[in-house]
């Protein structure tokens, strides 16, 4: 593909708000449930039923608006978006149009090196779900999702590459989770992303004609779709063709986007202000209350982790990716563990364990205090690293404390020079050939002696001390 072109990308992200009830009625907003059980006249769109705004959903949207440095409108307007589809019970969706709740914010990526501007964040209701029965001559519709609150986050076309898009999405997901407003689960559809993409000659100022790609259900698919669409449009332009303003549907199996509707077939949504609702007022008082209750956000936490704990940026990235992991980490350090050692443990053994068992840190059986004890045992040389890993496994299996396990099994590391020296002399005496070769210049054999020494001490020798003693003894034999 020619490198003379660049992609110009904007993302539209829908995030399902994790409120207890729906956007405009009291029905449960929980995911799943037996079809058509979380329903009432309002979310079924029955004649005569009326919407009432869920104040909690408004507060959630304000949280996100503030966290992305948006301006929060004191007055915003709900609007009807008209289109006929069987998953849309009123045949219009209540959304926001020309006056959204939040506007003009930003989200930084690449360690603050790049800002992606956010055009708007608005509130709306989700649609129901069509269920297509194989071989049947009809489809079914489940209205449990109908009316679940959504925020739509629309970015400006500031993104240029699949990697930037992916990072923006990950940061957004981490943010909504920090804020406690969305579980961020792309597979279950609580976070959904549409890509708007056009290409233009590098250096060009004006935008090309864009296409929209829908139905992207993972970060990977977003990246793949951007690659695919960038290539498709570039080839089209290079061969003298023109991009048309189409809506495409991503086919994850075929890894390609197919045209869903052309510009001519595009809907005229005939937006107009929703007359069943009054103007949505977000008072200065509400905004300040929400601002005051905002948790520490990922970027701020990242900076603090670097400065307060002296961590490398990479460690801070990993640890602040989730608010729960970050607070676990801080509890481990608060319990006395060395900050870098604790970070290594968390990013290594702990996360491996979480991934293998597919659990969150909240469900992890070793609590911060207990992990701190283990980290400290190793950091102070009481056990060596391989023993520590065994102790970790034992902690997981038995639930016992590290100290108790070390004591019970006599695993305490031997750093006593005299005891190690005695064993080291024995090792050297038993391996005269190797000693000779070592002294002849094959210094890699040091590891062999240390290994033998560890074997004799059943792993309890401090490897660093052991290596020093063996080196000293060997030089005596020159």
């Amino acid at each position, binding site marked *: 593909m020619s490198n003379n072109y660049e992609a110009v990308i904007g993302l539209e992200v829908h995030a399902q708000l994790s409120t207890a009830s729906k956007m405009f009625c009291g029905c449960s907003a929980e995911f799943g449930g037996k079809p058509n059980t979380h329903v009432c*006249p309002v979310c*079924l769109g*029955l*004649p*005569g039923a*009326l919407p009432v705004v869920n104040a909690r959903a408004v507060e959630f949207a304000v949280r996100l608006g503030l966290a992305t440095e948006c301006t929060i409108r004191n007055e915003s307007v709900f609007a009807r978006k008209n289109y006929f589809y*069987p998953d849309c019970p009123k*045949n219009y969706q209540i959304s926001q149009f020309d006056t959204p709740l939040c506007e003009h914010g930003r989200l930084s990526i690449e360690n603050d090196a790049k800002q992606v501007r956010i055009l708007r964040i608005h509130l709306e209701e989700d649609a129901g779900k069509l269920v297509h029965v194989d071989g049947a001559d009809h489809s079914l519709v489940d209205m449990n999702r109908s009316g679940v609150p959504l925020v739509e986050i629309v970015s400006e076309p500031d993104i240029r590459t699949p990697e930037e898009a992916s990072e923006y999405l990950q940061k957004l997901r981490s943010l909504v989770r920090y804020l406690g407003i969305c579980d961020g689960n792309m597979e279950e559809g609580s976070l959904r992303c549409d890509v708007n993409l056009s290409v233009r000659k590098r250096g060009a100022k004006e935008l090309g004609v864009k296409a929209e790609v829908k139905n992207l259900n993972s970060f990977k698919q977003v990246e793949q779709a951007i690659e695919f669409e960038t290539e498709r449009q570039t080839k089209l332009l290079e061969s003298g063709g023109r991009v048309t303003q189409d809506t495409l549907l991503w086919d994850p199996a075929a890894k390609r986007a197919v045209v869903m509707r052309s510009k001519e077939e595009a809907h005229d949504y005939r*937006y*107009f202000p929703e007359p069943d609702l009054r103007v949505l007022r977000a008072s200065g008082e509400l905004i300040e209350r929400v601002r005051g209750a905002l948790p520490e956000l990922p970027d701020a936490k990242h900076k603090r982790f670097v400065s307060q704990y002296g961590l490398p940026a990479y460690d801070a990235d990993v640890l602040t990716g989730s608010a729960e992991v970050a607070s676990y980490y801080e509890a481990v350090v608060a319990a006395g563990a060395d900050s870098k050692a604790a970070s290594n443990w968390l990013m290594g053994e702990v996360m491996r364990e979480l991934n293998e068992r597919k659990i969150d840190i909240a469900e992890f059986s070793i609590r911060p205090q207990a992990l701190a004890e283990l980290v400290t045992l190793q950091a102070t040389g009481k056990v060596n690293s391989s023993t520590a890993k065994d102790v970790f496994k034992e902690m997981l299996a038995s639930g016992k404390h590290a100290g108790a396990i070390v004591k019970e099994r006599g695993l305490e590391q031997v750093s006593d020079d005299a005891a190690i020296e005695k064993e080291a002399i024995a090792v050297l005496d038993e391996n005269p050939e190797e000693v000779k070769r070592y002294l002849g210049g094959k210094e890699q054999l040091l590891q062999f002696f240390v290994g033998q020494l560890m074997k004799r001490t059943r792993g309890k020798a401090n490897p660093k001390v052991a290596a020093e003693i063996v080196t000293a003894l060997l030089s005596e034999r020159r």
Partner: protein
Amino acid sequence: MSLHELSIFDLRRRIAAGEVTPLEACDAALAQIEARDRDVHAFLDVHAAHARDSARNLMASGKGRSLPLGGIPVAIKDNMCVEGTPTTCGSRILGKYQPPYTATAVARLRDAGAIVIGKTNLDEFAMGSSTENSAFGPTRNPWDLSRAPGGSSGGSAAAVSAGMAAASLGSDTGGSIRQPAALCGVVGMKPTYGRVSRYGLVAFASSLDQIGPFARTVEDAALVLNVLCGKDERDATSASTPVPDFTAELGKSLKGVRIGVPWEFLGSHVDTSVRTAFDRTIDAAKKEGATVVEVALPNADFGLAAYYIVANAEASANLARFDGIRYGHRTPKAQALVETYSKTREEGFGREVKRRVLLGTYVLSAGYYDAYYRRAQQVRSLIISDFATAFERCDVVAMPTSPTPAFKLGDKTDDPILMYLNDVFTIPVNLAGLPGISVPCGLSPEALPIGLQLIGRAFDETTLLRAAAGMERVADFSRGAVAPLPKGARA
């Protein structure tokens, strides 16, 4: 006087005293329906068994004697949901639909002891001014069976006029309570927008629709209003403004009340018989001490045009849900989705509804929104400020309710614009969200009732009702009368 002719006030006094039982009151209304509704066709569905059960329950619990509307038979316009009974909106598209819930306004009446005796006829989805747009045949005016009762709440007006109910509920989007009240010789009131919950009222135009009562006296209307009004958590547009006792000032004279009349606006719109009755009543009010001042409503002439943009735009979305997918009529003739939509709606909706949905869709379309919808909203703002200016000089504004008395059935059905002109005096009131009431003020030379409309300040129904009661007192009309049996009636 027979029970079915009694005002709510009198009937309540007798029920409270134990002289009349709720069941007797209910049976009197049902008997009158039996006697007159073959001719009038006010009702689409009579809930006789359920009504009598309710009456018996009120008697068994003893609450019938104490509740504010205990034992009062009421009729409900068939665009309000009553759980477990058909709600048709006068349309075929709802098929056999029965709502699983009851409208707040109806529930409030029931909680106050009223007995729902049935559902009344209307123009399909409340779109019309004669009740001739009902899919189930027109209602006839109880005063003259060859004439229309007005609309769209023609069934509710006729039911009260013919003594088939002591009161009824209508909905008023552009005059649909006040105009049929005028044409049927009863009192009909549209409260301030937001006074009465719209929850369970099948929407025509959400920003204009308001439920209100029909009764034969102003006092009765106030008694029903006392029960209807108040904040409903299920309707975000309902107001939390405190609800006073609306009967409190009804006894006060008209002395000192400033009545504003927009003489210029009345201009050429009004039929001579209506103008004569109107002028005579205004003069009588002056004699009782009212002050009459001229006010200007310079933008009211644009009301009709603005209304048919705003109302139809909202209706085009409100009626989108009738698509044959979840409830109501579904065409048996379609193979695919879009075809199901179009054939269901083609078969289910009548001509006037289709006309309005098309117009509403058009004015919201890309490229036309600013020219129509936005401009209509600007007109609306101008009309609101016209009224605000008028109310600096007066306490209530008076106008005829309708330019003519009841017209012949079929006279205006071929000319929508002519039909729309019926509402020229009532529509500006909906656009401004103000309370309005129609009070009978006289009879035409053909012995047809004529209505006088009073308009009040937002949420000042108290002053409006006081003035209305005064007008009722001075008007040349037999207060509280049931329509006399017309020629050709079968009873």
